[in-house]
């Protein structure tokens, strides 16, 4: 058996629907015989009648409805058709779900799935990575699974958490990542994972960039360098301790993220490491992000816009020389 990242997401939802009657799935095209723009809910409407519901094109109301249901004890899973459209639900997410527990003492256990990140030819409005915006505001847990196993266990965990969770699933990984089987239990939420051990340089990344970072580590291993790759798993909470422990071993830090460069997860990691582990660093910390323009449609432009193995290797090599 072999299972993709996308199938893991579907299986997690099937399990959640099976095990917990408070769970329902709400979003555009998730229901019927269709099962979502990416088929992440394929077959679920039939298997769980009345619990996988198509919605109008109304992102604000989709999340608002989920919030109301969650306040009343349900565990809704919202699928945004693309992360990019969550800009229209952002107010409900930040200002309603994100503030509700603090204000009233009543938590809002919604899970919002955001099909995120770039794929070839998707262009400015179907490629975005919005984790940094959601992590910036209080009240949300922001997951960014990078493996099939995490895609599965973290989604199950997301629904179990009593507070709102933004679950950023990467569209590029949907088909590109495969595992042999689904795991039982994963690492606890909020714990980063050392995806590859090394002693020369720490690469901190998350979501699809973990794969690029691992490929870069592989490549540099051939030159005799040992990169340690840390997969953040959740960008909020951010597991500073695991990152610091790695930097303590390597003395060098490179952060890689697919979102825009100004002020996102990579800046946050560097700010924490330099604040709490300044003496651990033997060289200036570095980061790689997408370029500061909208995400281009054309594959030639897209591959220059997005961080990839090649520029991770180049930057790492430069950093290793310092």
């Amino acid at each position, binding site marked *: 058996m072999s299972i993709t990242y996308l199938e893991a997401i579907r299986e997690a939802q099937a399990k959640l629907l099976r095990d917990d009657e408070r769970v*329902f799935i709400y979003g555009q095209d998730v229901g019927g015989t269709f099962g979502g723009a990416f088929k992440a809910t394929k077959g679920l409407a039939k298997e769980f009648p009345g619990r996988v519901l198509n919605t*109008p094109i109304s992102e604000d109301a989709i999340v608002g409805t989920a919030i109301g249901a969650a306040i009343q004890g349900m565990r809704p899973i919202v699928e945004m058709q693309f992360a990019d459209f969550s800009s229209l639900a952002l107010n409900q997410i930040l200002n309603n779900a994100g503030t509700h527990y603090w204000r009233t003492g009543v938590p809002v256990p919604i899970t919002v799935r955001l099909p995120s990140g770039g794929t070839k030819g998707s262009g400015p409005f179907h490629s975005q990575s919005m984790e940094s915006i959601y992590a910036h505001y209080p009240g949300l847990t922001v997951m960014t699974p990078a493996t099939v196993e995490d895609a599965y266990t973290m989604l199950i965990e997301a629904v179990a958490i009593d507070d709102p969770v933004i679950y950023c699933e990467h569209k590029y990984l949907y088909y590109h990542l495969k595992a042999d089987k689904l795991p039982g239990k994963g690492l606890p939420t909020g714990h980063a994972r050392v995806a590859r051990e090394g002693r020369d340089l720490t690469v901190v990344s998350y979501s699809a960039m973990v794969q690029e970072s691992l490929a870069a580590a592989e490549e540099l291993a051939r030159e005799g360098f040992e990169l340690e790759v840390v997969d953040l798993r959740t960008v909020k*909470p951010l597991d500073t301790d695991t990152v610091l422990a790695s930097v303590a071993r390597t003395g060098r830090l490179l952060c890689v993220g697919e979102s825009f460069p100004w002020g996102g997860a990579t800046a946050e990691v560097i700010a924490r490491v330099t604040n709490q582990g300044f003496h651990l660093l033997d060289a200036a910390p570095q980061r790689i992000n997408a370029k500061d323009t909208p995400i281009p449609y054309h594959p030639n432009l897209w591959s220059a816009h997005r961080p990839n193995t090649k520029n991770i290797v180049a930057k790492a090599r430069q950093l290793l020389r310092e």
Partner: protein
Amino acid sequence: MLQTAQRTGKPKTKKATPPHERFLEAFRWMLLARTVEEKLVSLYRGGLITGGVYIGKGQEAVSVACGLFLQKNDIFAPLIRDQAGRFAFGEPLVDVTRTYLGSRLGPMRGRDGNIHRGRPRDNQLAMISHLGAMVSVTVGALMAKRFRGEKNFVGLACIGEGGMQAGAFHEGMNIAAVEQVPLVVVATNNHYAYSTPNDREFACDDLVDRAIGYGFEGYSLDGTDLSACLDVIGGAVKRARAGRPPQLVVAEVLRLSGHGEHDDASYVPEEVKRQPFARDCLKVAEQTIIDLNLLDAETLAAWRKEAATQVDEAIATAQKEAAPEGGKEDWSAISTRELADQINDE
């Protein structure tokens, strides 16, 4: 041949005689709302309230009707000017004074203030400021009840004519109709959104004409007439409970205060204040009580006095209570403490 959509005729309200059977009960909540709000205004003027004070003067009849027909198990999403409805639905008076005065014992514990309060566990949702956002939240709460197999419940969400222009309101109305939840939306056109008059808010002849476009049933209402409010809103709640499509009621009144107490509303022309919709619903109701001899003068005076006493007590209680303190506060935005992000660089 091709033809334009027909305008619906504007439904008219008629004064009901004799008054609605819950007229006096409703009136008493209106009195309490007016009393506490007048008191809050004077505290605000005296510098004793931080932030703003937003009152529902002139809207008590509509508002009380919003709360009165709901049962404990129903969902209520009040907005800025719904003190009367909140009381009728069961909000304790002390919640109001505690929230305005920043007591640590209030439902918001000083974390939020004034009208931004609620008790979601008791089915009174806590509004966020962003107008229109609470309609879909109410829809979701009703869906949860349906999922669980509850019966016989309704939800009621309030909105102003200004908030009706927000995208979130539209999406909430439409999704309510798609989900066919038992929802009543009561829109109060008080002729202003802050300083903005109707003609810069919308351009249709009558906002109730929006009902048909959502698949709601729509009703117009003279919001200065308590009996009419009880009839129309009570009827809408009854119909929603009985499984009819979602209900929209559009009430007409004038906001008889500033937007908040910082606002002298000098932009409201005198001529507007002389319109029929500018009547003070509380005075109108009182006149009805006198005209129809529903209460004798002593009872009315006693009611007033009791309202004043209750309010004074609630204020005294809140004023005695401790304020929150930064050093003692639990600074976690989420309930799952182990997931709180530790930045550690403070």
